[in-house]
C-alpha cells in the first residue's frame, strides 16, 4: 500500500480531534520538564518535555540507543536526570516509590517468594497487616487468572504468567502511573498478543496511567493513546503522535486505514526512506537462494 491510498495522518477527523482535546483537558498525572541526561560526554536524552494525563496510555518508541530505557528509569527514580524535572501530580520525583509501579522486561519476580507472596511484597511494605495483604493478593491472583498457581514459585511459571504476576505485583500498590519497560519483549508472538489484550482489559477497569516502552510498532499503535517517538544521538523527541484509531482497541483494528497510516507515519520517522536503499539485505538473500539451488540439485 502506498502513501496516497491511505488517509494522511495529519488530517484528523473531528471526532479524533475532539477525543484528544478532551484527553488533554484531564489533569496532568506526570510531567517531564526540560529533561537532560548526560553519561560523560554522551548526551543520552536532550530536552524532553511531556505531559501525561490521567488514565492516558503513552507508548515510547525509537531506535536502539535513543535513551528510552534511560527515560523510564528516570521516571521511576532509579536514575537521576542531569537537569530538568519529573513531576508526579505536581510533586518532584527524586527516588523510586510505590506510586510509580514498574514492570521490567526481565520479570524480576523474587524467586524465593511464591506468586502470592510476590504480590504481597509491596502491600506489606506500605504497612498493610498480613491478613489484609493476603486477601488483596488473592483478589489480584484471581483477576490475573492464576488461582491454581498462588503457591507456585516463579521458576515454575511460563514467561507470560510471570509477567502477569509482575503486573499484578506493581498494580497491587495502587500506583498513579504504571511504568513498563518493554514488558512483552521477551515473550513469543502469540503470548505477546494475549498479554496486550490482557493489559488493555486491566487498563480499562483500573484507574491507572500507563507509560509503556516498546520497539514493536504494532504494539505501540495498538496500545497507545499517544506515541512518543524518540530519535537517537542525542535522544530527542521527534514527534508526539496522536493515534487516531478509536478506543477501546481490539485486534480487528490491525488492518484499519488509520492503524496502517499511523504505523507508516512512524515507520518513516524512525527509518527515513533514503536509509532503506543502502540496505544490502536483498543481495544476501539472492546469494542464499543460489546456495539452496545447488544443494537441491545434488539430491
Amino acid at each position: 500500500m502506498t502513501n496516497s491510498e491511505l488517509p494522511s495522518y495529519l488530517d484528523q477527523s473531528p471526532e479524533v480531534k475532539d477525543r484528544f482535546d478532551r484527553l488533554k483537558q484531564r489533569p496532568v498525572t506526570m510531567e517531564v520538564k526540560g529533561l537532560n541526561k548526560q553519561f560523560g560526554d554522551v548526551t543520552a536524552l536532550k530536552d524532553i518535555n511531556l505531559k501525561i494525563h490521567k488514565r492516558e496510555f503513552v507508548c515510547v518508541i525509537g531506535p536502539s540507543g535513543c535513551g528510552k530505557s534511560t527515560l523510564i528509569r528516570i521516571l521511576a527514580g532509579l536514575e537521576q536526570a542531569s537537569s530538568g524535572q519529573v513531576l508526579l501530580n505536581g510533586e518532584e520525583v527524586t527516588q523510586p516509590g510505590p506510586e510509580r509501579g514498574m514492570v521490567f522486561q526481565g520479570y524480576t519476580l523474587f524467586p524465593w517468594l511464591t506468586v502470592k507472596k510476590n504480590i504481597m511484597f509491596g502491600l506489606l511494605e506500605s504497612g498493610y497487616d498480613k491478613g489484609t495483604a493476603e486477601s488483596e493478593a488473592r483478589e489480584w491472583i484471581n483477576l490475573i487468572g492464576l488461582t491454581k498457581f498462588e503457591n507456585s514459585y516463579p521458576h515454575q511459571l511460563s514467561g507470560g504468567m510471570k509477567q502477569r504476576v509482575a503486573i499484578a505485583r506493581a498494580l497491587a500498590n495502587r500506583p498513579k502511573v504504571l511504568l513498563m519497560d518493554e514488558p512483552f519483549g521477551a515473550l513469543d508472538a502469540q503470548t505477546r498478543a494475549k498479554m496486550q489484550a490482557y493489559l488493555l482489559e486491566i487498563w480499562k477497569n483500573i484507574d491507572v496511567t500507563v507509560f509503556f516502552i516498546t520497539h514493536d510498532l504494532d504494539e505501540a499503535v495498538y496500545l497507545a493513546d499517544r506515541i512518543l517517538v524518540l530519535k537517537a544521538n542525542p535522544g530527542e523527541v521527534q514527534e508526539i503522535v496522536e493515534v487516531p484509531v478509536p478506543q477501546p482497541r481490539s485486534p480487528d483494528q490491525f488492518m484499519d486505514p488509520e492503524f496502517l497510516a499511523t504505523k507508516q507515519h512512524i515507520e518513516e520517522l524512525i527509518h527515513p526512506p533514503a536509509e532503506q536503499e543502502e540496505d544490502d539485505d536483498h543481495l544476501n538473500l539472492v546469494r542464499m537462494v543460489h546456495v539452496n539451488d545447488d544443494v537441491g540439485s545434488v539430491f
Partner: protein
Amino acid sequence: MQLIAVNRKLDQGPRRAVTLASFALPILLWALISYVPFLWHPQVEITQPGSVSYFSEGLLVDREIFEREYAKASDNETALPEGKPANPVYLPAPHEVAVAFVTAFTTEPQRRSEMWLHESLWSSIQVIFWGFVLSSIIGIPLGILAGTYDFFSRLFEPFIEFFRYLPAPAFGALAVAVLGIYQAPKIAIIFIGTFFQQVLVVANTTRKLDPSLLEAAQTLGAKNRSMLFRVVVPGILPDLYRDVRILLGWAWTYLIVAELIGTSSGITWFITQQARYKNFDNVFAAIIMIGILGLTIDLLLAWLGRRLFPWQKESK
C-alpha cells in the same frame, strides 16, 4: 549411547557407574601397585639373611643393595640371601589399611598422655566446629553488610584484604600466649584462617545478587532496612549456603596447623605421631577417615540445601 558429550547429562545408570569408578579407579591402581610384584616394588624384604651379616629377617633393603650382596655371596660361594619384592614402608597395601581402620580404634595409646583415636577425632571435630561457627557468626553479617553498602565495603574490605595475606599459622605463638595451651588457641587458628576469606567471599556473593531485583523492590516501596532483610538476605541465601560449604572445606586445611600448637591433640596429631612410629597403615586409615568425614558432612549439607531452598531451579 555416547558417554563423553558436551552439554549432555549422563543417564542414571552410567552416572552411578562413573561415580563408583571415581573411587574404584584410584583403589584399583593402589591395589595393582601393592599386589603385583613386578609393578614398582623398588625394595626387597629379606626372608633369609644367608651369609650377609647385616641382613635380618623382615628387613627392607633397596633392590640394588640386595642384588649386590647376592652377587657377592654367589661369587664367594657362601650361603645366598633370599627375599621377595616389596614396596617401601610408606605405602602399605589396601588390606593392611583396612585392618588398621578397625585396629586404630581398638589400639591403646602408646603413652598415657596420648588419646584414643576416637577421642582425637572428636577433639578435631570440636575445634573445627567452634572455629567455624564463631567465624561465621561474625563473618557472614560483616560480609553481607560490605556487599550491600558501599560504606561498609570501604570500611572493612581494605584491611581484610591486607590481613588475609598473613598466614594463619603465623599467629600460632600469639594465640597460645593469649589463649593458653588447650583448645582455645586451636579454635583461634581455624577462626583466623576462615574469617577473613569468609567476609570477602560473602561480600562478593552479596554483590552478585541481580541488581534488577533490588530495583524492583525499590519501585515497590522497599526502603533500606527491608531491602536488606526482605530482598538481599533471602536473595543470596542459596549462594551463601554454598559458600559456607566450600569454606568449611578450607577450615579443615587449617586443622593440621591448629593441632600442632599448644598441647598437641586431634586427628592430625595422631597422624604425625603414627608416622613417627612408622605405622603408615594407621596414617592412611586416619587420612581416609578425614576424607570420609568431610565428604559425609558435605553430602549432608547438600541434601539439607535442597530441602531448604525449594525455589531454586537447580540446587547442587
